[in-house]
């Protein structure tokens, strides 16, 4: 079983919840939570095999940025996507994808765009501490 660890930095919960897609979500700690359309936090997912390609975006999704990066000591690709729920909300998905130990890892920082200035620095700092084990 693939495992990972990171320093929650007092920003996200140590214990994750498992989402429908198999990702584990570490939500913002209670005192940092605010009303929003999404559950803000950091999620991590490991899939077997190397990454084939980045999934196609839907009409409500905007690809804002793509750049090479490094995470957990491995080359990674960082993407930033906005998900627009009509005029009701805009959710930020900032993702790092990397292959390590024969698995495809995806770490995602998520939050409402209106709260992003307050959330992004902390969520990025948490993800920067990610370590993965095969």
């Amino acid at each position, binding site marked *: 079983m693939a495992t990972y660890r990171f320093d929650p930095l007092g920003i996200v919960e140590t214990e994750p919840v498992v989402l429908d897609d198999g990702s584990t979500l570490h939500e913002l700690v209670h005192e940092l939570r605010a009303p*929003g359309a999404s559950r803000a936090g950091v999620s991590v997912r490991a899939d077997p095999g190397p990454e084939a390609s980045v999934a196609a975006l839907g009409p409500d999704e905007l690809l804002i940025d793509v750049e090479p990066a490094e995470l957990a000591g491995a080359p990674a690709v960082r993407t*930033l996507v906005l998900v627009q729920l009509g*005029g009701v*909300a805009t959710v930020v998905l900032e993702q790092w994808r990397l292959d390590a130990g024969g698995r495809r890892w995806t770490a995602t920082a998520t939050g409402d*765009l209106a*709260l992003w200035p307050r959330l*992004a620095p902390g969520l990025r700092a948490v993800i920067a501490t990610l370590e993965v084990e095969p």
Partner: protein
Amino acid sequence: MSVVVDPGRAEVRGPAQAIRALLDGTEEPGPPLLAAGLRAARSPLVRFRVTGLPQALEALADAHAAVLVLPVEDGGTALRACTPSGLLGLLVRAVGLCPRPRARPAEPILVAADAMAALVNERSAAHAGLDEAQETLLGEHLDALVAHWRIEVHGPDGGWYVEVLDGERGLWTVEDAPDRRLALTPSGATAVLDEIAALPGHVGLGPPA
């Protein structure tokens, strides 16, 4: 003269005069989001203006909701209601922010403020008084320029803006600098998005960064 309400889009549209009458009144037609947007439009805390697009956009917002003011066919006006994060997303979509290469070095280039219009219109840095390396770097960017847009916001704590020279070779921000100059700085789409998201907080609306 009447307005048409689109509940699904939380939008109301009609002749400009009818929209003005709606805003001058107290009627709140449509779904709760449209009602909240109309309240924001009637007593806005913050005003956004986007220039550099084929048509300028305006938005009016309070702490809970906003309306994007859109020109429509036949000289009419549409008010599209949205939440604060919905508005920011619509602004990002409007300016077409998308992945661009990073220009290096990411050092600011200073140009005289009164030279900026000519620089963009002529797409040339030849008369900006730059050294050869800067002139080449900026000239290459201007050759591939796609758009020059600016989002301004004014609120209780003053005004702020994000201005960008968007080109196939990268995104450059434009910021005021001392001595009536402007700093043109290579940037990235994530940094620009972060700046747009921070706009409301700079003028007293939304969470501080």
